[in-house]
């Protein structure tokens, strides 16, 4: 049996290889299933400045809203349900709430409201829920999942009134909330925003040109070495360490080649899967016009404190809450997709 001194929490890395030419490729559905994205990082090889189409696409990412001290019962408001939730494609996530300490809330685009509550809050709320999948010895985390589009949760129905009473009088939770929706989706958040202090934000875009980038052989490098190399590029960590260096022995995996120039782009905010899909399509178009040895990598990080991860499955934070995926796209339409999840996650799709 493994000693506790060398044991580490479980982590999962799913590595898929296929081609966009294959009709059964699942990239699109996998991208769609990670609802709450915090950061997208793009690395373009053999590129020194962003092409104009790509730049205009990055600036057209959906804006999102931060609502201060939003009482949770407002998400059950009849007008909000009719003008936003029932229209679909509305994304909401509590801001600055830590999943391992506080109560966290997510509103999914299919109208499911997910409340991740500590034991006291759950007992005070008095609504059906279940214990967290990731409770170990003590049951101290509960998840309440409500389908707001279901008939039983229509305004006036018994279940709706019970939850509304719970959030209004028994557990009047208030928290800062991030909201976003597809611009052309038909949903309107104005009714809700007009009643509280809110601010509109657009995703923050940053670019950085890199020169003489040592790069491993993307086809043959092992997945963990590849992700470590990409993480070092993303974090500006030096990979030119000699074997006698005292500080670090991190080097680029062999065999390697030097890419004369590369462009690193990052976008941060509440990012929607719809925008990520458009970005992937644009990157594929861009790659079609490049040299055969060019490639593009796209990394999408999910929110650490989101109560749900891929496909609405429960997500938790143990020592870390990583849930991200990295897509390497090549000139010949093949791709490598790596999906990473931590200890309190189910296996990525």
């Amino acid at each position, binding site marked *: 049996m493994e000693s506790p001194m060398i044991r580490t929490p479980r982590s999962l890395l*799913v590595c898929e290889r296929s081609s966009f030419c294959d009709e059964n490729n699942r990239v699109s559905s996998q991208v769609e299933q990670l609802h709450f994205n915090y950061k997208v990082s793009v690395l373009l090889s053999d590129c020194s400045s962003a092409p104009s189409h790509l730049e205009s696409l990055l600036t057209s990412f959906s804006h999102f809203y931060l609502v201060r001290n939003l009482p949770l019962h407002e998400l059950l408001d009849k007008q909000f349900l009719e003008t936003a939730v029932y229209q679909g494609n509305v994304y909401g996530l509590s801001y600055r709430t830590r999943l391992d300490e506080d109560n966290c809330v997510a509103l999914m685009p299919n109208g499911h409201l997910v409340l991740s509550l500590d034991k006291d809050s759950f007992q005070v709320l008095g609504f059906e829920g279940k214990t967290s999948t990731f409770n170990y010895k003590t049951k101290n985390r509960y998840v309440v999942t409500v389908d707001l589009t279901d008939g039983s949760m229509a305004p006036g129905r018994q279940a709706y009134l019970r939850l509304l009473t719970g959030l209004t009088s028994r557990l009047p939770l208030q928290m800062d909330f991030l909201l976003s929706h597809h611009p052309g989706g038909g949903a309107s958040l104005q009714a809700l925003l007009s009643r509280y202090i809110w601010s509109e934000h657009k995703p923050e875009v940053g670019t950085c040109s890199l020169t003489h980038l040592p790069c491993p052989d993307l086809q043959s490098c092992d997945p963990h070495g590849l992700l470590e190399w990409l993480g070092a590029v993303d974090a500006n960590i030096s990979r030119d360490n000699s074997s006698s260096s005292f500080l670090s022995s991190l080097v680029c995996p062999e065999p390697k080649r030097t890419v004369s120039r590369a462009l690193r782009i990052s976008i941060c905010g509440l990012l929607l899967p719809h925008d990520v899909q458009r970005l992937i399509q644009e990157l594929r178009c861009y790659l079609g016009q490049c040299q055969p040895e060019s490639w593009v990598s796209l990394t999408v990080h999910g929110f650490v404190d989101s109560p749900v991860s891929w496909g609405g499955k429960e997500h938790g934070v143990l020592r870390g809450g990583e849930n991200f995926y990295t897509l390497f796209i090549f000139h010949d339409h093949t791709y490598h997709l790596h999906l990473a999840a931590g200890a309190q996650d189910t296996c990525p799709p």
Partner: protein
Amino acid sequence: MRRDEEKGEAAVFQRVVLKNASPYHYMKVCLVLEDESTKLSAVELKQFIITGLKTLYGEVGAALNFDLLKYDEDTFTAVLRVYSKWLVKLWSSLTLNGFYQNQACAFRVLQVSPFLLALSGNSRELQLD
């Protein structure tokens, strides 16, 4: 002939699930010193951590290999890489390391992950104020 060519061009789908396969763990840590004007170089920080390992785990602990991947001298924030089997020993020695040159200090462990990529995508750093 065309049928054979079509078969030859068919994409191969491959899916592999790796569990606990990362050889390394990565830590983002921050050193908080009593005297904030103290200067500390990367070499001094690494030596300080090695001293802490030696204090807690002896010579065997001091021989434990870890890498100081990145260090910011202004904020005393560092990214460390260590073999997964030695994570607990390194982390515990950072926790119990309380004095630097006769002044009180503390290591704050900001993030730990088996993926270095996760350290640059931490949504808890999102500031919208």
